Protein backbone atom coordinates (compact mmCIF):
# COMPACT_ATOMS: atom_id res chain seq x y z
CA UNK A 1 0.00 0.00 0.00
CA UNK A 2 1.42 3.36 -1.01
CA UNK A 3 0.37 6.65 0.46
CA UNK A 4 1.26 10.16 -0.53
CA UNK A 5 0.27 12.74 2.07
CA UNK A 6 0.58 16.36 0.94
CA UNK A 7 3.87 15.71 -0.71
CA UNK A 8 5.88 18.54 -2.21
CA UNK A 9 9.30 18.32 -3.80
CA UNK A 10 11.71 21.15 -4.45
CA UNK A 11 14.88 20.52 -6.44
CA UNK A 12 17.80 22.74 -5.62
CA UNK A 13 20.59 23.13 -8.10
CA UNK A 14 23.91 22.74 -6.31
CA UNK A 15 25.84 25.11 -8.55
CA UNK A 16 23.54 28.10 -8.70
CA UNK A 17 20.73 28.96 -6.38
CA UNK A 18 17.89 27.96 -8.66
CA UNK A 19 15.07 26.10 -7.04
CA UNK A 20 12.53 24.13 -8.95
CA UNK A 21 9.19 23.20 -7.48
CA UNK A 22 8.43 19.87 -9.07
CA UNK A 23 5.49 18.61 -7.03
CA UNK A 24 2.94 20.63 -5.16
CA UNK A 25 0.79 19.06 -2.51
CA UNK A 26 0.24 15.65 -4.02
CA UNK A 27 -1.88 13.18 -2.12
CA UNK A 28 -3.20 9.80 -3.12
CA UNK A 29 -3.61 6.28 -1.91
CA UNK A 30 -2.81 3.11 -3.82
CA UNK A 31 -4.04 -0.15 -2.32
CA UNK A 32 -2.00 -3.31 -2.61
CA UNK A 33 -2.49 -5.01 -5.92
CA UNK A 34 -3.83 -1.97 -7.72
CA UNK A 35 -2.47 -0.52 -10.94
CA UNK A 36 -2.10 3.24 -10.67
CA UNK A 37 -1.36 5.19 -13.82
CA UNK A 38 0.24 8.64 -13.72
CA UNK A 39 -0.44 10.76 -16.75
CA UNK A 40 0.39 14.35 -17.61
CA UNK A 41 2.39 16.67 -19.86
CA UNK A 42 6.12 16.13 -20.44
CA UNK A 43 8.49 16.96 -17.66
CA UNK A 44 5.76 17.58 -15.15
CA UNK A 45 7.04 15.44 -12.35
CA UNK A 46 5.70 11.95 -12.92
CA UNK A 47 9.18 10.54 -12.71
CA UNK A 48 9.71 12.47 -9.48
CA UNK A 49 6.78 10.62 -7.94
CA UNK A 50 8.26 7.32 -9.01
CA UNK A 51 11.66 8.26 -7.66
CA UNK A 52 10.07 9.16 -4.33
CA UNK A 53 8.41 5.78 -4.07
CA UNK A 54 11.58 4.06 -5.19
CA UNK A 55 13.45 5.85 -2.46
CA UNK A 56 16.03 7.53 -4.70
CA UNK A 57 15.01 10.95 -3.38
CA UNK A 58 13.25 12.31 -0.35
CA UNK A 59 10.26 14.63 -0.24
CA UNK A 60 10.71 18.25 0.81
CA UNK A 61 7.33 18.35 2.50
CA UNK A 62 4.72 15.77 3.30
CA UNK A 63 5.05 12.04 3.78
CA UNK A 64 5.57 9.15 1.42
CA UNK A 65 4.51 5.93 3.09
CA UNK A 66 4.87 2.33 2.09
CA UNK A 67 2.72 -0.04 4.14
CA UNK A 68 2.32 2.81 6.62
CA UNK A 69 6.06 3.24 7.08
CA UNK A 70 8.07 6.14 5.63
CA UNK A 71 10.34 5.30 2.72
CA UNK A 72 13.99 5.92 3.53
CA UNK A 73 15.85 4.41 0.62
CA UNK A 74 15.72 2.06 -2.35
CA UNK A 75 15.02 -1.63 -2.01
CA UNK A 76 14.07 -4.67 -3.99
CA UNK A 77 10.52 -4.64 -2.70
CA UNK A 78 9.90 -1.46 -4.70
CA UNK A 79 11.75 -2.19 -7.88
CA UNK A 80 11.80 -0.01 -10.98
CA UNK A 81 11.67 -0.49 -14.73
CA UNK A 82 13.14 2.34 -16.79
CA UNK A 83 12.30 3.71 -20.21
CA UNK A 84 15.92 3.16 -21.30
CA UNK A 85 15.85 -0.43 -20.03
CA UNK A 86 19.12 -0.02 -18.12
CA UNK A 87 20.15 -3.61 -18.59
CA UNK A 88 23.69 -4.35 -17.48
CA UNK A 89 25.62 -4.76 -20.73
CA UNK A 90 28.32 -6.89 -19.14
CA UNK A 91 25.86 -9.57 -18.04
CA UNK A 92 24.01 -12.02 -20.24
CA UNK A 93 20.23 -11.98 -20.30
CA UNK A 94 20.08 -14.75 -17.74
CA UNK A 95 22.60 -13.09 -15.46
CA UNK A 96 20.68 -9.84 -15.69
CA UNK A 97 17.56 -11.61 -14.56
CA UNK A 98 19.38 -13.34 -11.72
CA UNK A 99 21.01 -10.09 -10.66
CA UNK A 100 18.70 -9.31 -7.74
CA UNK A 101 18.71 -12.88 -6.50
CA UNK A 102 22.35 -12.88 -5.48
CA UNK A 103 22.10 -10.63 -2.42
CA UNK A 104 19.26 -12.84 -1.20
CA UNK A 105 21.79 -15.64 -0.93
CA UNK A 106 19.77 -17.96 -3.14
CA UNK A 107 21.86 -20.94 -4.27
CA UNK A 108 22.88 -21.28 -7.88
CA UNK A 109 20.58 -24.14 -8.77
CA UNK A 110 17.59 -22.31 -7.52
CA UNK A 111 18.56 -19.10 -9.23
CA UNK A 112 18.76 -20.93 -12.50
CA UNK A 113 15.35 -22.39 -11.98
CA UNK A 114 13.82 -19.03 -11.27
CA UNK A 115 15.47 -17.37 -14.25
CA UNK A 116 14.45 -20.20 -16.56
CA UNK A 117 10.86 -19.89 -15.40
CA UNK A 118 10.89 -16.15 -16.00
CA UNK A 119 12.53 -16.53 -19.40
CA UNK A 120 9.68 -18.80 -20.35
CA UNK A 121 7.18 -16.31 -19.00
CA UNK A 122 8.46 -13.46 -21.18
CA UNK A 123 9.11 -15.70 -24.14
CA UNK A 124 12.89 -15.40 -24.31
CA UNK A 125 14.10 -18.90 -23.41
CA UNK A 126 16.25 -19.10 -26.52
CA UNK A 127 18.05 -15.89 -25.68
CA UNK A 128 19.22 -16.77 -22.20
CA UNK A 129 22.88 -16.51 -23.08
CA UNK A 130 22.63 -13.51 -25.37
CA UNK A 131 23.89 -10.10 -24.40
CA UNK A 132 21.73 -6.97 -24.25
CA UNK A 133 23.46 -5.33 -27.18
CA UNK A 134 22.26 -8.16 -29.36
CA UNK A 135 18.60 -7.66 -28.57
CA UNK A 136 15.86 -5.43 -29.94
CA UNK A 137 14.10 -2.78 -27.85
CA UNK A 138 11.07 -4.91 -27.14
CA UNK A 139 13.20 -7.85 -26.09
CA UNK A 140 15.29 -5.69 -23.82
CA UNK A 141 12.21 -4.44 -22.05
CA UNK A 142 11.04 -7.99 -21.57
CA UNK A 143 14.36 -8.83 -19.94
CA UNK A 144 13.96 -5.79 -17.70
CA UNK A 145 10.53 -7.02 -16.73
CA UNK A 146 11.83 -10.51 -15.96
CA UNK A 147 14.68 -9.04 -13.96
CA UNK A 148 12.24 -7.01 -11.87
CA UNK A 149 9.90 -9.94 -11.30
CA UNK A 150 12.75 -12.15 -10.16
CA UNK A 151 12.97 -10.31 -6.86
CA UNK A 152 9.27 -10.74 -6.20
CA UNK A 153 8.55 -7.08 -5.61
CA UNK A 154 5.51 -5.80 -3.78
CA UNK A 155 5.60 -2.67 -5.90
CA UNK A 156 6.51 -2.40 -9.56
CA UNK A 157 7.46 1.11 -10.69
CA UNK A 158 7.38 1.60 -14.42
CA UNK A 159 8.60 4.81 -16.04
CA UNK A 160 7.15 4.97 -19.56
CA UNK A 161 8.53 1.49 -20.15
CA UNK A 162 6.93 1.03 -23.54
CA UNK A 163 7.58 4.56 -24.74
CA UNK A 164 10.35 3.74 -27.18
CA UNK A 165 8.66 0.72 -28.74
CA UNK A 166 6.62 0.46 -31.88
CA UNK A 167 2.85 0.00 -31.63
CA UNK A 168 2.92 -3.79 -32.03
CA UNK A 169 5.58 -4.46 -29.41
CA UNK A 170 3.76 -2.04 -27.18
CA UNK A 171 0.41 -3.79 -27.43
CA UNK A 172 2.04 -7.17 -26.89
CA UNK A 173 3.88 -6.00 -23.80
CA UNK A 174 0.80 -4.35 -22.34
CA UNK A 175 -1.07 -7.64 -22.54
CA UNK A 176 1.93 -9.55 -21.16
CA UNK A 177 2.12 -7.13 -18.25
CA UNK A 178 -1.54 -7.71 -17.41
CA UNK A 179 -1.09 -11.46 -17.58
CA UNK A 180 1.94 -11.33 -15.34
CA UNK A 181 0.15 -9.00 -12.97
CA UNK A 182 -2.70 -11.48 -12.78
CA UNK A 183 -0.43 -14.05 -11.13
CA UNK A 184 1.03 -12.33 -8.08
CA UNK A 185 -0.86 -9.02 -8.23
CA UNK A 186 1.91 -6.58 -7.25
CA UNK A 187 1.05 -2.92 -6.87
CA UNK A 188 2.01 -1.18 -10.08
CA UNK A 189 2.68 2.54 -10.48
CA UNK A 190 2.89 3.23 -14.18
CA UNK A 191 3.89 6.48 -15.88
CA UNK A 192 2.76 7.15 -19.40
CA UNK A 193 1.98 9.81 -21.97
CA UNK A 194 -0.61 7.78 -23.72
CA UNK A 195 -4.21 8.11 -22.62
CA UNK A 196 -4.99 4.81 -24.30
CA UNK A 197 -2.35 3.05 -22.29
CA UNK A 198 -3.77 4.54 -19.11
CA UNK A 199 -7.21 3.20 -19.99
CA UNK A 200 -5.91 -0.24 -20.91
CA UNK A 201 -3.93 -0.72 -17.74
CA UNK A 202 -5.15 1.46 -14.91
CA UNK A 203 -7.41 0.83 -11.94
CA UNK A 204 -6.86 4.39 -10.86
CA UNK A 205 -5.59 7.24 -12.99
CA UNK A 206 -3.88 10.29 -11.53
CA UNK A 207 -3.89 13.18 -13.96
CA UNK A 208 -1.18 15.73 -13.25
CA UNK A 209 -0.71 19.32 -14.33
CA UNK A 210 2.44 20.71 -15.84
CA UNK A 211 5.22 21.84 -13.55
CA UNK A 212 4.75 22.29 -10.65
CA UNK A 213 2.67 19.14 -10.78
CA UNK A 214 -0.66 19.34 -9.02
CA UNK A 215 -3.43 16.81 -8.98
CA UNK A 216 -5.92 17.63 -11.72
CA UNK A 217 -8.03 14.53 -11.58
CA UNK A 218 -8.27 11.15 -9.91
CA UNK A 219 -10.25 8.61 -11.92
CA UNK A 220 -11.30 5.14 -10.82
CA UNK A 221 -11.97 2.45 -13.40
CA UNK A 222 -13.64 -0.71 -12.17
CA UNK A 223 -13.69 -2.60 -15.45
CA UNK A 224 -12.16 -6.08 -15.63
CA UNK A 225 -9.20 -7.02 -17.82
CA UNK A 226 -8.74 -7.32 -20.75
CA UNK A 227 -10.51 -4.12 -21.74
CA UNK A 228 -11.89 -3.00 -25.05
CA UNK A 229 -10.95 0.66 -24.89
CA UNK A 230 -11.85 1.24 -28.51
CA UNK A 231 -15.48 0.11 -28.60
CA UNK A 232 -16.70 0.38 -25.02
CA UNK A 233 -18.38 3.77 -24.64
CA UNK A 234 -17.42 4.03 -20.99
CA UNK A 235 -13.83 4.51 -22.01
CA UNK A 236 -14.77 7.12 -24.54
CA UNK A 237 -16.25 9.20 -21.74
CA UNK A 238 -13.16 8.79 -19.61
CA UNK A 239 -11.01 9.70 -22.57
CA UNK A 240 -12.92 12.91 -23.09
CA UNK A 241 -12.72 13.68 -19.41
CA UNK A 242 -8.94 13.33 -19.35
CA UNK A 243 -8.51 15.13 -22.63
CA UNK A 244 -10.49 18.11 -21.43
CA UNK A 245 -8.37 18.50 -18.36
CA UNK A 246 -5.08 18.04 -20.18
CA UNK A 247 -5.98 20.21 -23.12
CA UNK A 248 -5.89 23.26 -20.91
CA UNK A 249 -2.44 22.27 -19.73
CA UNK A 250 -1.05 22.13 -23.22
CA UNK A 251 -2.87 25.31 -24.18
CA UNK A 252 -1.20 27.09 -21.31
CA UNK A 253 2.19 25.90 -22.39
CA UNK A 254 1.84 27.10 -25.96
CA UNK A 255 0.46 30.46 -24.78
CA UNK A 256 3.40 30.90 -22.48
CA UNK A 257 5.84 30.28 -25.25
CA UNK A 258 4.23 32.83 -27.45
CA UNK A 259 4.55 35.51 -24.81
Amino acid at each position, binding site marked *: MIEFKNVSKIYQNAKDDRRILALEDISFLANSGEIIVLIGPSGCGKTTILNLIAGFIQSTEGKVLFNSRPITG*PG*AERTMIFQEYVLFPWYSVRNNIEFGLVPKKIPRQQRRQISSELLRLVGLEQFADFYPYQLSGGMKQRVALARALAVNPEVLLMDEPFGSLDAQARGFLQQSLLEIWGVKKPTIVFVTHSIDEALILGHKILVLSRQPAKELDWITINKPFPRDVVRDSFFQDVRVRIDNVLKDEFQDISNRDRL
Partner: protein
Amino acid sequence: MAKCKKIISEIKKLDVIVLLLIIWEVFSRWIYPGIEPQAKIFLPPPSFILKEYWQLLSSNILFHHIAASFKRVLFGFFLASLFGVIFGFIIGLSRRAHEQLRIICNIFRPIPPIAWIPISLLWFGITEKQQYFIIFIGVLFPVLFNTSEGVYGVSAHYKYAAQALGVKGLSLVKRVVLPAALPRIMLGLRSGFGYAWFIIVAAEFVSAPNGLGYLILEGRNALVTERIFVGMITIGIINLIFYYFLTKLENWIAPWKKIAFIR
Protein backbone atom coordinates in the same frame (compact mmCIF):
# COMPACT_ATOMS: atom_id res chain seq x y z
CA MET B 1 37.04 -16.86 -53.52
CA ALA B 2 35.68 -13.80 -51.76
CA LYS B 3 38.56 -13.87 -49.34
CA CYS B 4 41.03 -13.92 -52.21
CA LYS B 5 39.40 -10.88 -53.68
CA LYS B 6 39.63 -9.09 -50.37
CA ILE B 7 43.31 -9.85 -49.98
CA ILE B 8 44.00 -8.72 -53.52
CA SER B 9 42.21 -5.44 -53.00
CA GLU B 10 44.16 -4.88 -49.82
CA ILE B 11 47.44 -5.50 -51.59
CA LYS B 12 46.46 -3.15 -54.38
CA LYS B 13 46.47 -0.37 -51.87
CA LEU B 14 50.18 -0.80 -51.36
CA ASP B 15 51.01 0.18 -54.90
CA VAL B 16 51.92 3.77 -54.02
CA ILE B 17 54.19 2.62 -51.23
CA VAL B 18 55.99 0.17 -53.45
CA LEU B 19 56.38 2.87 -56.03
CA LEU B 20 57.83 5.26 -53.49
CA LEU B 21 60.24 2.64 -52.27
CA ILE B 22 61.45 1.99 -55.77
CA ILE B 23 61.94 5.68 -56.41
CA TRP B 24 63.78 6.01 -53.12
CA GLU B 25 66.07 3.12 -53.96
CA VAL B 26 66.90 4.34 -57.40
CA PHE B 27 67.37 7.93 -56.32
CA SER B 28 69.49 7.34 -53.24
CA ARG B 29 71.62 4.67 -54.80
CA TRP B 30 72.50 6.07 -58.17
CA ILE B 31 71.37 9.66 -58.51
CA TYR B 32 71.94 11.31 -55.15
CA PRO B 33 75.57 10.18 -54.62
CA GLY B 34 76.36 11.99 -57.84
CA ILE B 35 75.15 15.28 -56.37
CA GLU B 36 76.23 14.93 -52.77
CA PRO B 37 79.30 13.01 -51.66
CA GLN B 38 77.81 12.34 -48.24
CA ALA B 39 74.67 10.96 -49.79
CA LYS B 40 74.64 7.66 -47.95
CA ILE B 41 74.62 9.47 -44.65
CA PHE B 42 71.71 11.69 -45.58
CA LEU B 43 69.55 9.14 -47.28
CA PRO B 44 70.63 5.52 -47.34
CA PRO B 45 68.81 3.34 -49.85
CA PRO B 46 66.27 0.84 -48.55
CA SER B 47 68.52 -2.01 -49.59
CA PHE B 48 71.29 -0.75 -47.32
CA ILE B 49 68.82 -0.42 -44.51
CA LEU B 50 67.71 -4.00 -45.02
CA LYS B 51 71.31 -5.10 -44.95
CA GLU B 52 71.92 -3.36 -41.66
CA TYR B 53 68.68 -4.84 -40.36
CA TRP B 54 69.87 -8.29 -41.21
CA GLN B 55 73.22 -7.69 -39.57
CA LEU B 56 71.76 -6.45 -36.34
CA LEU B 57 69.14 -9.16 -36.32
CA SER B 58 71.42 -12.09 -36.94
CA SER B 59 74.03 -10.97 -34.48
CA ASN B 60 71.36 -10.73 -31.80
CA ILE B 61 72.30 -7.13 -31.12
CA LEU B 62 68.85 -5.99 -32.10
CA PHE B 63 67.22 -8.41 -29.67
CA HIS B 64 69.47 -7.15 -26.95
CA HIS B 65 68.27 -3.61 -27.48
CA ILE B 66 64.64 -4.59 -27.87
CA ALA B 67 64.79 -6.54 -24.64
CA ALA B 68 66.36 -3.66 -22.77
CA SER B 69 63.66 -1.22 -23.88
CA PHE B 70 60.98 -3.76 -23.23
CA LYS B 71 62.10 -4.36 -19.70
CA ARG B 72 61.97 -0.68 -18.90
CA VAL B 73 58.58 -0.15 -20.44
CA LEU B 74 57.04 -3.17 -18.77
CA PHE B 75 58.43 -2.37 -15.38
CA GLY B 76 57.39 1.26 -15.38
CA PHE B 77 54.04 0.46 -16.92
CA PHE B 78 53.25 -2.28 -14.44
CA LEU B 79 54.08 -0.16 -11.44
CA ALA B 80 52.20 2.86 -12.71
CA SER B 81 49.15 0.81 -13.68
CA LEU B 82 48.94 -0.89 -10.31
CA PHE B 83 49.17 2.40 -8.51
CA GLY B 84 47.00 4.25 -10.98
CA VAL B 85 44.13 1.77 -11.15
CA ILE B 86 43.89 1.18 -7.42
CA PHE B 87 44.09 4.81 -6.42
CA GLY B 88 42.06 5.97 -9.39
CA PHE B 89 39.30 3.60 -8.40
CA ILE B 90 39.18 4.77 -4.82
CA ILE B 91 39.29 8.41 -5.85
CA GLY B 92 36.59 7.94 -8.45
CA LEU B 93 34.14 6.74 -5.86
CA SER B 94 34.05 10.13 -4.17
CA ARG B 95 32.92 13.22 -6.07
CA ARG B 96 35.05 15.62 -4.04
CA ALA B 97 38.16 13.54 -4.36
CA HIS B 98 37.62 13.18 -8.09
CA GLU B 99 37.32 16.90 -8.62
CA GLN B 100 40.49 17.56 -6.66
CA LEU B 101 42.26 14.89 -8.65
CA ARG B 102 41.15 16.56 -11.81
CA ILE B 103 42.80 19.77 -10.75
CA ILE B 104 46.00 18.04 -9.72
CA CYS B 105 46.13 16.23 -13.02
CA ASN B 106 45.67 19.51 -14.79
CA ILE B 107 48.79 20.72 -13.02
CA PHE B 108 50.92 17.73 -13.87
CA ARG B 109 49.53 16.77 -17.21
CA PRO B 110 51.10 19.60 -19.22
CA ILE B 111 54.53 18.75 -17.84
CA PRO B 112 55.87 16.14 -20.22
CA PRO B 113 57.65 13.20 -18.62
CA ILE B 114 60.71 14.17 -20.64
CA ALA B 115 60.95 17.36 -18.63
CA TRP B 116 61.43 15.20 -15.59
CA ILE B 117 64.59 13.65 -16.96
CA PRO B 118 67.21 16.02 -15.57
CA ILE B 119 65.74 16.11 -12.11
CA SER B 120 65.29 12.36 -12.10
CA LEU B 121 68.94 12.02 -13.01
CA LEU B 122 69.72 14.06 -9.96
CA TRP B 123 67.67 11.76 -7.78
CA PHE B 124 68.52 8.39 -9.27
CA GLY B 125 71.67 8.93 -11.25
CA ILE B 126 72.24 7.13 -14.52
CA THR B 127 70.53 3.92 -13.52
CA GLU B 128 67.72 1.66 -14.63
CA LYS B 129 65.65 3.08 -11.79
CA GLN B 130 65.78 6.47 -13.43
CA GLN B 131 64.40 5.01 -16.64
CA TYR B 132 61.64 3.22 -14.73
CA PHE B 133 60.79 6.49 -13.06
CA ILE B 134 60.32 8.37 -16.30
CA ILE B 135 58.04 5.67 -17.65
CA PHE B 136 56.19 5.61 -14.35
CA ILE B 137 55.51 9.33 -14.44
CA GLY B 138 54.37 9.14 -18.02
CA VAL B 139 51.97 6.26 -17.53
CA LEU B 140 50.64 7.23 -14.12
CA PHE B 141 48.56 10.23 -15.08
CA PRO B 142 46.64 8.79 -18.03
CA VAL B 143 45.86 5.65 -16.05
CA LEU B 144 44.99 7.44 -12.83
CA PHE B 145 42.82 10.01 -14.52
CA ASN B 146 41.01 7.64 -16.85
CA THR B 147 40.34 5.15 -14.07
CA SER B 148 38.95 7.82 -11.80
CA GLU B 149 36.92 9.32 -14.62
CA GLY B 150 35.60 5.89 -15.54
CA VAL B 151 34.52 5.10 -12.00
CA TYR B 152 33.11 8.55 -11.37
CA GLY B 153 31.24 8.58 -14.63
CA VAL B 154 29.35 5.34 -14.14
CA SER B 155 25.83 6.24 -15.13
CA ALA B 156 23.63 6.91 -12.15
CA HIS B 157 20.97 4.83 -13.85
CA TYR B 158 22.98 1.67 -13.39
CA LYS B 159 23.40 2.41 -9.73
CA TYR B 160 19.72 3.17 -9.32
CA ALA B 161 18.68 0.03 -11.14
CA ALA B 162 20.96 -2.06 -8.95
CA GLN B 163 19.72 -0.49 -5.74
CA ALA B 164 16.13 -1.03 -6.80
CA LEU B 165 17.03 -4.70 -7.08
CA GLY B 166 18.48 -4.90 -3.63
CA VAL B 167 22.17 -4.59 -4.47
CA LYS B 168 24.18 -2.02 -2.56
CA GLY B 169 27.48 -1.25 -0.92
CA LEU B 170 30.51 -3.34 -1.77
CA SER B 171 28.46 -5.67 -3.88
CA LEU B 172 27.30 -2.72 -5.93
CA VAL B 173 30.88 -1.62 -6.49
CA LYS B 174 32.00 -5.08 -7.49
CA ARG B 175 29.11 -6.06 -9.73
CA VAL B 176 28.11 -2.75 -11.25
CA VAL B 177 30.66 0.05 -10.85
CA LEU B 178 33.69 -2.02 -11.77
CA PRO B 179 32.31 -3.57 -14.99
CA ALA B 180 30.77 -0.26 -16.01
CA ALA B 181 34.07 1.55 -15.56
CA LEU B 182 36.12 -1.17 -17.17
CA PRO B 183 36.06 0.12 -20.78
CA ARG B 184 37.35 3.50 -19.64
CA ILE B 185 39.97 1.91 -17.40
CA MET B 186 41.15 -0.15 -20.33
CA LEU B 187 41.33 2.98 -22.42
CA GLY B 188 43.57 4.52 -19.80
CA LEU B 189 45.80 1.47 -19.75
CA ARG B 190 46.00 1.37 -23.49
CA SER B 191 46.85 5.09 -23.65
CA GLY B 192 49.39 4.65 -20.92
CA PHE B 193 51.08 1.78 -22.66
CA GLY B 194 51.25 3.60 -25.94
CA TYR B 195 52.61 6.60 -24.16
CA ALA B 196 55.27 4.52 -22.47
CA TRP B 197 56.65 3.48 -25.84
CA PHE B 198 56.42 7.06 -26.95
CA ILE B 199 58.58 8.28 -24.08
CA ILE B 200 61.08 5.47 -23.81
CA VAL B 201 62.89 6.63 -26.90
CA ALA B 202 63.66 10.05 -25.51
CA ALA B 203 64.44 8.68 -22.07
CA GLU B 204 67.01 6.40 -23.62
CA PHE B 205 68.47 9.19 -25.70
CA VAL B 206 69.63 11.03 -22.66
CA SER B 207 70.81 8.40 -20.26
CA ALA B 208 70.81 4.78 -21.24
CA PRO B 209 73.56 2.40 -22.31
CA ASN B 210 71.26 0.30 -24.47
CA GLY B 211 67.80 0.05 -25.87
CA LEU B 212 66.12 1.10 -29.09
CA GLY B 213 66.38 4.79 -28.33
CA TYR B 214 70.05 4.35 -27.69
CA LEU B 215 70.38 2.44 -30.93
CA ILE B 216 68.84 5.27 -32.88
CA LEU B 217 71.03 7.85 -31.26
CA GLU B 218 74.09 5.70 -31.76
CA GLY B 219 73.25 5.56 -35.43
CA ARG B 220 73.40 9.32 -35.55
CA ASN B 221 76.58 9.66 -33.55
CA ALA B 222 78.37 7.08 -35.63
CA LEU B 223 76.84 8.56 -38.78
CA VAL B 224 75.44 5.16 -39.71
CA THR B 225 72.03 6.39 -40.75
CA GLU B 226 70.85 2.89 -41.59
CA ARG B 227 70.88 2.12 -37.90
CA ILE B 228 68.58 5.03 -37.24
CA PHE B 229 66.09 3.60 -39.66
CA VAL B 230 66.40 0.15 -38.16
CA GLY B 231 65.54 1.55 -34.76
CA MET B 232 62.63 3.58 -36.07
CA ILE B 233 61.15 0.70 -38.02
CA THR B 234 61.51 -1.70 -35.13
CA ILE B 235 59.77 0.58 -32.69
CA GLY B 236 57.06 1.23 -35.24
CA ILE B 237 56.46 -2.47 -35.68
CA ILE B 238 56.37 -3.09 -31.94
CA ASN B 239 53.88 -0.27 -31.44
CA LEU B 240 51.69 -1.56 -34.24
CA ILE B 241 51.66 -5.09 -32.87
CA PHE B 242 50.83 -3.96 -29.39
CA TYR B 243 48.11 -1.63 -30.50
CA TYR B 244 46.50 -4.41 -32.50
CA PHE B 245 46.61 -6.88 -29.65
CA LEU B 246 45.51 -4.44 -27.01
CA THR B 247 42.49 -3.50 -29.12
CA LYS B 248 41.63 -7.15 -29.55
CA LEU B 249 41.94 -7.65 -25.81
CA GLU B 250 39.68 -4.73 -25.12
CA ASN B 251 37.05 -6.03 -27.52
CA TRP B 252 37.20 -9.44 -25.91
CA ILE B 253 36.73 -8.04 -22.43
CA ALA B 254 33.98 -5.61 -23.35
CA PRO B 255 32.34 -6.77 -26.58
CA TRP B 256 29.52 -4.32 -26.18
CA LYS B 257 31.82 -1.48 -27.06
CA LYS B 258 33.62 -2.42 -30.23
CA ILE B 259 36.58 -0.29 -31.17
CA ALA B 260 37.78 0.05 -34.71
CA PHE B 261 41.41 -0.91 -35.13
CA ILE B 262 42.65 2.21 -36.82
CA ARG B 263 41.64 5.11 -34.60
